């Protein structure tokens, strides 16, 4: 007899998505189709643009949630299967539980977004439908698969407890379908930004060029990494929330460990993220240099100062979390002496990173400065300085991690001294390479300077891989100075984890505004003009308000999901 729970769970999921779909179709057929034909319609009070912006952003944030968490869950479950440690399996399960509700919210926001686009921007939707209608079949099939696997993955946990391999296959399929779904939707969004395969009047010449347009792959890769990062930080925030509300030491220990694991995955994905961002930026320049200049040197250039501050919060917060966490590890005291110098390095680099090239100054102030750029700060405002600062920040964070990793270990291998010396030399050399190219960049033309960032990135990646590899062998069978005392971490560290999750969401909102704003007065860049009377490119100040509001709404929903998770766990305990 089939496990009824599994079957009922899957049917429940399908029913939910079908109801949302039916409501959407009914609304479109009864409401939208009865309205007189026009290019644009107005959304009351907020205006069409703001309404679409907020709903699209919320949909994307939840989509990142339902895509990021399964990646996290499958990795954790796999580790649990290999190490036979039940806490990993429990962690994966706890998070999958949150997925079903998050998935419903994602689908509701997706349906509202679709409805609003059809209702408010009919001319734009008609055009997109003409180009991309074949993809809608795939989209529906992928949504169906995503629902089935999400619910199957959760509800078959007990049934397949003895067949972990098969359960992992479901998890992997869930990720494959989810990622394919995202890739498909990315083709629509990236087409708006960097259209291909159409004439300058918008006539379709080659579907595949429109589908796999210029920025499609860079966005795909960037979003996959960003989703892992997002998933990790959200898990950490959930753990922090549960840690702070925990009643017993056992619970605290569990959620402290969960917070650490989530943060570790978040940071691991955060480190390669800037490199994926570079690639995307490069492709934007390659597609349309003007768009690239608008992004980096035009109206959006100041956005990168805010971005720098937000990423700085992520890195400083992560380092701080590592350092506070070391207090609960016996034997970690020997590394405390390095923290002050690392903190100074971090702050100096952050200060350089957030230095604008051109200051907002009045004429009188500009005259006092004596030039368009401040004589000292202007030097730090260019890419050479910023790339150097970012790479040094990454190296410093990596060093924090290495200290954390070996905090309660004492090496026993006979080549330990040589190994550590080699690690130090690698660190020193790589830092020197990064600084050398940073300084040399001032003496060469811009086009050569841009190429230097590749050498800097490669050097840092080399350090990450080689030092970690040496470290693994160096501390194999190491003598332990004590166990990590999970749960004995001050509450302030947990607030940092929540801050990191909020910062990631703000960052996603900011970059979403950039990606859409880059099109400026176009629905589809250079193909379809935005002729709506209220069309404008929102200022950075206004955008930051909308992003903050969206972030607040998102976290209100997330808090509700967390509360549901807590409630269901309590019920399970009671049962």
């Amino acid at each position, binding site marked *: *007899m*089939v*496990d009824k729970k*599994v*079957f009922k769970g*899957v049917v429940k999921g399908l029913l939910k998505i079908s109801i949302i779909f039916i409501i959407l179709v009914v609304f479109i057929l009864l409401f939208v189709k009865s309205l007189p034909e026009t290019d644009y319609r107005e959304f009351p009070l907020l205006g069409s643009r703001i309404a679409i912006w907020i709903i699209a952003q919320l949909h994307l944030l939840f989509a990142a949630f339902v895509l990021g968490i399964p990646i996290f869950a499958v990795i954790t479950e796999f580790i649990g299967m290999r190490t036979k440690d039940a806490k990993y399996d429990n962690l994966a399960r706890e998070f999958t539980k949150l997925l079903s509700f998050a998935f419903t919210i994602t689908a509701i926001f997706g349906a509202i977004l679709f409805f609003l686009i059809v209702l408010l921007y009919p001319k734009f939707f008609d055009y997109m439908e003409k180009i991309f*209608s*074949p*993809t809608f*079949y*795939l989209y*529906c*099939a*992928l949504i*169906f*698969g995503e629902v*089935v*696997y999400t619910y*199957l993955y959760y509800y*078959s946990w007990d*049934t*397949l407890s003895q*067949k972990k391999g*098969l359960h992992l*296959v*479901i998890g992997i*399929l869930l990720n494959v*379908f989810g990622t394919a779904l995202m890739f498909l939707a990315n083709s629509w969004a990236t087409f708006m930004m960097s259209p291909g*395969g159409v004439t300058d009047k918008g006539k*379709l*010449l*080659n*579907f*595949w*060029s429109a589908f796999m347009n210029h920025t499609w792959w860079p966005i795909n890769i960037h979003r996959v990494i960003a989703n892992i990062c997002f998933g990790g930080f959200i898990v950490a925030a959930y753990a922090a929330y549960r840690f702070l509300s925990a009643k017993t030491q056992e619970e605290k220990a569990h959620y402290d460990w969960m917070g650490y694991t989530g943060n570790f995955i978040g940071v691991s994905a955060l480190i390669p993220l800037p490199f994926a961002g570079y690639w995307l930026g490069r492709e934007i320049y390659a597609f349309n240099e003007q768009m690239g200049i608008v992004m980096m040197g035009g109206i959006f250039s100041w956005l990168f100062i805010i971005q720098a501050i937000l990423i700085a919060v992520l890195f400083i917060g992560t380092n701080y979390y590592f350092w506070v966490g070391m207090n609960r590890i016996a034997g970690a005291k020997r590394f405390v002496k390095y923290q002050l110098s690392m903190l100074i390095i971090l702050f100096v680099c952050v200060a350089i990173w957030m230095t604008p090239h051109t200051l907002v100054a009045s004429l009188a102030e500009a005259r006092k400065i004596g030039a368009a750029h401040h004589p000292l700060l202007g030097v730090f405002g260019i890419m050479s300085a910023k790339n150097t600062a970012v790479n040094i920040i990454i190296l410093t964070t990596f060093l924090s991690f290495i200290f954390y990793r070996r905090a309660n270990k004492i090496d026993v291998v006979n080549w330990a001294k040589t190994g550590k010396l080699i690690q130090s030399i690698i660190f020193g050399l790589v830092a020197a390479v990064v600084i050398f190219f940073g300084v040399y960049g001032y003496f060469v033309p811009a086009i050569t300077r841009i190429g230097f960032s590749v050498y800097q990135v490669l050097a840092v990646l080399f350090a990450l891989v080689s030092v970690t590899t040496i470290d693994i062998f160096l501390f194999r069978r190491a003598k332990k100075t004590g166990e990590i005392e999970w749960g004995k971490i001050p509450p302030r560290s947990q607030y940092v984890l929540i801050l990191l999750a909020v910062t990631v969401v703000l960052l996603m909102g900011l970059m979403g505004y950039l990606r859409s704003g880059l099109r400026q007065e176009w629905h589809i860049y250079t193909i379809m003009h935005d002729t709506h009377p209220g069309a404008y490119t929102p200022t950075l100040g206004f955008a930051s308000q909308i992003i903050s509001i969206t972030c607040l709404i998102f976290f209100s929903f997330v808090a509700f999901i967390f509360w549901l998770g807590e409630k269901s766990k309590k019920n399970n305990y009671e049962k």
Partner: protein
Amino acid sequence: MKTKIIEILILIPILILILALGVFLSKVPEPVPELKMPKIYFGEQPKADEKIVKGWKIYNEKGCFFCHGIEGKGDIKNPNSKGGKISPLQLVAEGYTKEELKGLILRGTRDIAKENKNGPNPPINMPAWKGVLSNEELDVLSEYLMSLIPKEKKEEW
């Protein structure tokens, strides 16, 4: 039995996806064939060996004639440059070796000498062709340019 149903549930979305993939592929419109512009070559095809003919084609295809004139005869204006015109290429063999010429093409000439030092920069300069021309193209192009020297000039030498 329990897992058999689960296995079937696993397979259903895959089958539906394959079906959708089939519909998707059948709905994708055939690409509109690209319009192929006929290649137009200016001037008379040189009656010389194959290498020089290839160079003549490259000279036309890459648009060198826009600035240096048909068959390198020049006469194209570049205000405020020395002489007010872009240098013709017919006598290039008198001033450069083939290797020097190759270097010149690859590097381009960013700063064009001005007739009036206080006047504006000449609007046209020679772009660098490094990374644009293949080694073979560069070789045949410079071979062609070296062959442009008029016969009487060759005999004078």
